[in-house]
């Protein structure tokens, strides 16, 4: 049963990726939504970022004592200045490691 579940999940995941490229979707639909497509990578990835950086407790978001948030701010600045994925990840990760290991707010 586990194998069947894995295969079905794989099949549906592939369908999600393939259907728009299959050519079976009506062509008239596409020009109507085209102007919004440039936002897709931003609006899909941003929620993952926000939720990954947030510390929740009883539906309250904690800002202080959240080293991920501070490190993310450093990473944003690094991304703006360097526009380089490797440098941004390295600086963000380094600052997080330093803060979480050496700071006690």
């Amino acid at each position, binding site marked *: 049963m586990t194998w069947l579940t894995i295969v079905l*999940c794989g099949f549906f995941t592939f369908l999600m*990726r393939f259907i728009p490229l299959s050519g079976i979707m009506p062509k008239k639909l596409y020009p109507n939504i085209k102007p*919004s497509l440039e*936002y897709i990578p931003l609006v899909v990835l*941003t929620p*993952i970022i*926000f939720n990954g950086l947030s510390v929740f407790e009883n539906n309250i978001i904690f800002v202080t004592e959240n080293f991920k948030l501070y*490190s993310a701010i450093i*990473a944003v600045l690094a991304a*703006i200045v360097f526009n380089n994925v490797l440098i941004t990840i390295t600086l963000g990760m380094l600052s997080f490691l330093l803060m979480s290991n050496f700071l006690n707010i």
Partner: protein
Amino acid sequence: MNKWIIFRQGILEELPLQLGVFPFGIIYGIMAIESGLTPLQSFLMSSIIFGGASQIVFVQLISSSSSIPIILTSITAINSRHFLYSLSMYDFLIKLKLKWRIILAYLLTDEAYAVSIRKFMKEPNNSLLRYHLLGTGLTLFTSWQMATLTGILLGGNLPQFLDLNFIIPLTFLAIIVPMINSISTFFAVLSSGLSSLYFKNLELSLWILLAGIVGLFVGFITRKLDKKE
């Protein structure tokens, strides 16, 4: 620029993201084994589903004895964003032969898409763009399989500094910040991020989809502000 140069460019541009992907894959491998899956199931799932976050959700659900419909619905909801990725690449890929579209659709995951869409948007008239996505996709695929295998072999001996909850958002942050280049993209990002926090308690990971819709809507209605720039 020939196809090999573009293919290699895709590989090289994808490599830095493996800093985030590899630990993620290791953690998946460990979690899969701990959830009771066999090493073969754990390993092959990375090829069959090939979708990081959804695989982690899969092992969480399977370890809590969830039913097949619940698992299927959850995985499909999480991976529904790939539909949007694919849709945004329609113009670039629809004229390719079916075998190319099948291969590239299979490889169209978060990190491969995030890197290649920048190239696609920058050079929309380049007829060899498929090789870039092939490069990013195959790099990610190889890395993901190796990371999964490492996690399976490691078992519970995960280094403490590998914080999955931070590495993944950090990776995406590095990708999207340079893409915020107008008022409407800024508002799209802000609205999708904030609404995702509001929708967080929804089941089936629907917050990703709903926040994406909010962001799309806000981006679309604030496009007028871009024209005044």
